Structure formats: structure tokens, C-alpha cells
């Protein structure tokens, strides 16, 4: 059987990234947007690990740890903001964020 080459990983990563981007652009629920951002970050993680493995160089994998911790911090802040929004508007629809569009 043919071994799985780097290009397959990169292609999967690109597809996942595009799914994430489309999710952010098309969905209106703040939590779903947050999930889509996480998909984008994890798509990049896949790329970084695959490239790092293929090159035999570790800095890509080290960056992945940074990305994971950043993603955790962002999730914490994002969900806190979504809760604060829900308390005021009883909705997490980003289309309700239109105070400044007057």
C-alpha cells in the first residue's frame, strides 16, 4: 500500500480550514462561529504537525502547543462574552449586534 504523503495531510488541513472559514462567514450563532474558529486553528495544527514530521524539525510541533493553549484561552473568553451577551439580549445571534449601525 502506498504511504500517506505530506500532500494528503496538507489537503485535509486546507479543506478543514475552508470549512472553518465558511462556518465563520455563513453562520449567525456566536457559539457556532466560535466552533468554526476552533476548526480553523485545529486545521492549522494538523498542517504544522505534518510539516514538522516531514521535515524532521520540531519547532512546528512546539508551535502547536502554543496554539492549543491560545485556543483554550480564547474559548474561555469567547464563551464568557457570549454569556454576557445572552444575559442582555437572551439571544446569541450575532445579527443582534447592531447598536453602532445607526
Amino acid at each position, binding site marked *: 500500500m502506498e504511504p500517506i504523503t505530506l500532500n494528503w495531510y496538507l489537503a485535509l488541513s486546507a479543506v478543514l480550514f475552508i470549512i472553518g472559514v465558511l462556518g465563520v462567514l455563513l453562520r449567525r450563532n*456566536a457559539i457556532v*462561529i*466560535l466552533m468554526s474558529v476552533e476548526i480553523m*486553528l485545529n486545521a492549522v495544527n494538523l*498542517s504544522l504537525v505534518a510539516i514538522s514530521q516531514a521535515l524532521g524539525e520540531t519547532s512546528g510541533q512546539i*508551535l502547536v502547543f502554543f496554539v492549543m493553549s491560545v485556543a483554550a*484561552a480564547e474559548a474561555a*473568553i*469567547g464563551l464568557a462574552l457570549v454569556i454576557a*451577551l445572552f444575559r442582555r439580549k437572551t439571544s446569541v445571534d450575532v445579527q443582534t449586534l447592531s447598536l453602532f449601525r445607526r
Partner: protein
Amino acid sequence: MDITFYFPPLADYVATFPMLVLAVAALLCVVVDIFYNDAKGVAILAGASLLVTLLFEAARLSLPPAKALYGMVYVGGTASLVNMTILFSGFLTVLIAQPYLKRLGRNYGEVYALLLVAVVGMMALGSAANLLTLFAGLETMSVCLYILTALVREKDGAIESALKYFLLGAFSTGFLLYGIALIYGATGTMDLSDFADRLASTNAGVMFWGGTALLLVGFFFKVSAVPFHMWTPDVYQGAPTPISGFMATASKTSAFAAMVLVLGRALPSAQWQTTVAIVALLSMVIGNFVALAQSNVKRMLAYSSIAHAGYVLTGIASATPEGYAGALYYLLVYTVMNVGAFGVLAYLEHDNRQGDTQTVDSLAGTGQRYPLLGVVMAVCLFSLLGFPPLAGFFGKVYVFGPAVKSGLAWLAVAGVLTSAVSAAYYLRVLYVMWMKPSPDDAVAPQFEGVPPLAAVALAGCAAFLLLLTFTPWVMDAAVAFFRDVPAAIVSLP
């Protein structure tokens, strides 16, 4: 196994002293706040640590640039200048924000801890020698700023602007990170100074240029350049005013400095020059013209900051050492002007009648009633406009001049013309402040006067902008510094 390998040499601790001190001070702020619940003490601690590190960086300004912590950050020289700009902005923000937040009833100790951590992130971003440092610094900064934006969480506007900032910021981080991954895949290194060699030996392919494009998108978002500027007005309007000033200056300075490091040092200019020039043009035109139509002063300053991002990008687009030096000089001047302008607004917004809506009309007569604020605002706005004897004018000379030399005369002409347009909205604010009488003087203003330290900070902003004019040696020294340092950048280890 030799464990000493894991501990950097002492010289590295000295070189990165400001970052270490501020990180420790931030932790101390949290501890002091928990055990003593003394927001004033925390503010003093934060201000003192920022002042000490500011003086430390000033002392290192003349050192030749070097790398520290296993080649992860640049220290000394240009890096010191960028760090000084960031620290100066942070220091002034602490002075201005403390009384402001106290009046809002939001003078929490965490604010200062977050501010210090954000400053550490900004310094890492602005002096990054490795894409890893760049990402870590960028996110440290952004995460703190998301929280600071939502400080007054009972206000609809604050939550709305924080959520917008967060969602778009996280989205743009994804692009930036994907750019880093692709560049890493194409070159096999994250070290900025290795790119040139790797690119020479391997043919830069689609992967590399795709990565560069994504990285640029991430940067353009962070510096709010058109077409990635949509979040800026909403965020600056909704955030507490001194924090808006901090975001508009320090975070942009660090992102621009990182951009200079990545574009200027690591990538061949022929490939990105046109793109940056076009983005600069769009930012100047759209920023200045849309600012004309704003009735809210904070929103107007937000659009003006988009236009100023365009001016800085003009300097970067020239792709010469003089251009980069001019961009960094402009950022220093821009920081002082904008911290001053947002600081004045912070104290005027609780004046009377219109509360914190900050429409231009609500400023009527404030110049005569509070001459200090009026004069500081006048100096800052004239400088933002680029009026000849003030620092803002020299800033513009140093970004437009190199652009003309690099054959981007059309961009410089567009910059000068759009600056002329900006006179309309800057001078309108001054006209209303000084010439228009207050609508009803019978209404007693609830204004308590500017607290002494904040007054010193605001007067300091104005004095700094005048100082660069009336003491030519400061100017000469600055120019010489900027002429020298970029030449040294090129030959860095």
C-alpha cells in the same frame, strides 16, 4: 544530561529585563488585588514598573541590536525604540485610566494586571525574531485586549464591541497562523533571519507566497488597514476611552513593528511592495473620507487611526531602511498624539448633558471651560493633522519622503491630499470646542476637574509633541538614530 542548557545565560535576563519585570509585576498586581483589595496600590505598582522599564529601554536605545533567549527576540536599538513606544503608551494609559475608571466605579486591580500582560505580549510581538514569538506575543496581547474592551459589561455597547473584536480577532488569527504554517512548510524554519538563505537555496513556490499572503491578511487586520478595518470603529467606540487610546496606539505599534521585521527583513520587497502600497492608499482614502461623516468623536478618531495606518504603511511600502525608520518614528508620534486625544475625550465625556455619547456637538464650549483639556486637544489634533511645526508633520515627512524616493510618488501625493481632507474633521472638533458657546450654561457641569497625575500625563503628551519642534537636537538625534539603526538591522546575526 546537562541541565544548565535549559537556563539562558545571565545576559539574556538583563536583555529581556523589561518583559520579565512586567510579567512579574502583573502577577504581583493580581496577588495584591486579592489579598489587599487595593486598586490604587495596584495602579501605583503598574505605573512604577512601566516607568522603570521605560527608563531601562531608554538606556539601551543606543546599543547595537542583538538577539536574546536563543534567538527568539531582538533586543536593543530598534527593538528598544519599539518597546519604549509601547511602554510609554502603557504608562500614560495607567495615569489617565486610573481616575477615569474610578469615576466609572470600575477601578479593579485586574485591569492593571491585564494591561501589563498585554504590554508584555506587545513587546514580544514588536521585537519577535521568530514566528513562534510573534504568534505567542500577538495572542497574549489580543486575549488581554478582548477582556479590557468588555470592562463595562453592563453597557450594551461594551459587550457588542468586545464580541465583535473577539470573533473577528480570532478569525484573523486563524489566517495569520495558517500563513505561518505554510511559510514554515516552504522554508523549513521559523527563524526570520533564516528566510533569506532558505529562499535563495529553494525556489519560493505557491506555498510560500500563499503563506505570505495569509500572514499579510492577519497583519492588515491587526493594524486595521482597509479592507480589514470594519471592526475598528465599533471596538474603539464601545471600549472604555483610555483603553481605546491604548489599543489604537500600543497594539498597532507592535503589530507594525512585527510587520517591519517580517516584511523588511525576511521577505524580498519586490513581491509585496505593490500590495502594501495599494492597501496604504485605500486606508488613507477610505479612513479620511469616512471620518468626515462621523458625528461621534471616538468613532471619528477610529477612522482617523485607519487613515494613519495608511500613512505608516506608506513608509513600509517604500521598502528602504529610511522608510522603515520613518514608519517607526511615525508610530512614536502617533502614539503620543492619540493617547492625548483619547485621554482628553475620556475626561470630557462625563461633562454634562449628553453623558458619554461623545458627539462633536456635546463638546461645545469645553475648550474655554477647561483650558488645559482644550489646549492639549488642540495640540494633539493639529499634530494628527500634520500641521508644520508639530511632531506629526515631521512624522509625515519621514514616511512620505522615502516613498517618493522609492518611486511611489503617487502614493505620497495621495497621502498629502488626504491629509488635507483630514483637516476638515480635526478642525471641526477644535472649532466646536473653542468657538461654539455651550448651549445652556445654566446646567451645572458634573465635571470634577482633571486629577493632577492625569493632567500631568495629558500636558506631557502636548509638551512632547511641541518638544520635538522647539528643540532641534531631539529631532536631529532621532533622525540620526533612525538613519543608523536600519543599516545595522540588515547585518544582524
